[in-house]
């Protein structure tokens, strides 16, 4: 559990169980996330993916059983984009509330270019389309130095070319010793061993 050993896990979940609204979503879930892993949480709508992710990153702290250990810093992107409508994409990244790093202006510009927002750096974010708005948030994937990424539906509202660019970036991250835990209702198209964690609750049809 120490941070020094190279092979230590980036996240340990120990016998997690959760019941919401009278429905048991999962029980006795234990797993470790190690460097180099690309894990996709699967499950139909309402299976408990978001609930599990919020427990993993530490936003839910009551109402479940089990423990989570987080030896490594985590980059979390959730359902909500965390983009302030009144600030431009550039300011959104420079003054981001996560307070994770101090980025140079060129770094931010490059990241915005990578997510296809070249030319929109200084437009107020509320004048962006739904997908562009989410892309501002995704630019953090090109800036962050956190080893573990936890992403809740990063592809929502992103167009096809955007999705493949993101997949490439995820691949790049895991092959450089990072790890990714993500949910998505679209199948991932990557050349990498994709581990799947299936939650079987939610809508049955």
């Amino acid at each position: 559990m120490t941070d020094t050993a190279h092979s230590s896990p980036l996240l340990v979940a120990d016998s997690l169980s959760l019941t919401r609204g009278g429905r048991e979503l999962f029980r006795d879930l234990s797993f470790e996330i190690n460097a180099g892993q690309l894990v996709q949480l699967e499950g139909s709508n309402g299976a408990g993916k978001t609930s599990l992710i919020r427990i993993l990153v530490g936003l839910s702290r009551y109402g479940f059983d089990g423990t989570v250990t987080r030896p490594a810093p985590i980059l979390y992107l959730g359902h909500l984009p965390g983009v302030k409508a009144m600030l431009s994409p550039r300011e959104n990244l420079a003054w981001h509330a996560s307070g994770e790093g101090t980025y140079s202006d060129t770094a931010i510009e490059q990241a915005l270019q990578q997510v296809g927002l070249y030319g929109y750096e200084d437009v107020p974010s509320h004048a962006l389309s739904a997908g562009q708005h989410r892309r501002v948030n995704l630019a953090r994937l090109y800036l962050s130095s956190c080893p573990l990424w936890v992403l809740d539906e990063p592809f929502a509202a992103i167009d096809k070319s955007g999705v493949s660019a993101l997949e490439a970036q995820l691949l790049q991250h895991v092959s450089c010793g990072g790890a990714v835990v993500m949910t998505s209702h679209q199948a991932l198209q990557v050349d990498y061993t994709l581990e799947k964690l299936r939650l079987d609750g939610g809508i049955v049809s």
Partner: protein
Amino acid sequence: MSAPGSLQFCRRLLRRQLTLAVRRPVEIGNPLLFFTMVVALFPLGLGPAPDKLADFAPGILWIIALLSNLLTSDAVFRSDFEDGSLEQLLLSPQPLYLTVLAYIGAHWLITGLLLALICPVFALMLNLPASAIATLALSLLLGTALLSLLGCIGAALTVGLKRGGMLISLLILPLYMPVLIFGSAAVKGAVVGSPAGPYLAIIGAMVCLAIALAPLAIAAGLRISVDA
């Protein structure tokens, strides 16, 4: 890239909050305009006898300052909650105590400070004796800081509620009452020529206590709200 120091991060947050406020001049102008209009309501509602108004001017001005603070503090964390920035703030490696102080500071700068600067105009409109104006401004300067600190506690506890509505006023108006009493007492004292120092000292002491404790309550409240 490297993680910013806590103080640097606070400065950055403060700058962000102020920029957000400046982007909508309406946001800054509104508490002041609200103040103005409610000042205008009083003569209309109470009847404009000038001597009576002067008697009551300290109380009226303080009540309005309190209301306009109440109305703005509801919004301190709300937009950050709704767009997800608050989640990111809670997960950040920075000490929440300090970041919360940055939010409070920004709120005070764009409501309390401005109000204190502009209040002499209203004081004159309500026939407050000129000798009491300095005390009024000073008491508002200190008192609104306390109001911001307390108001943010209410804001943090109610930000996650689907339709909190005016719940915040129920939670924090009782806490505002001592501020109102001491603040208006200071101004009334100044009107009749007795020293206002002791009252201001009490408010100052309360501000110190609140700076030490309120951020803890706010941090706890934010964590609860995001969790619920």
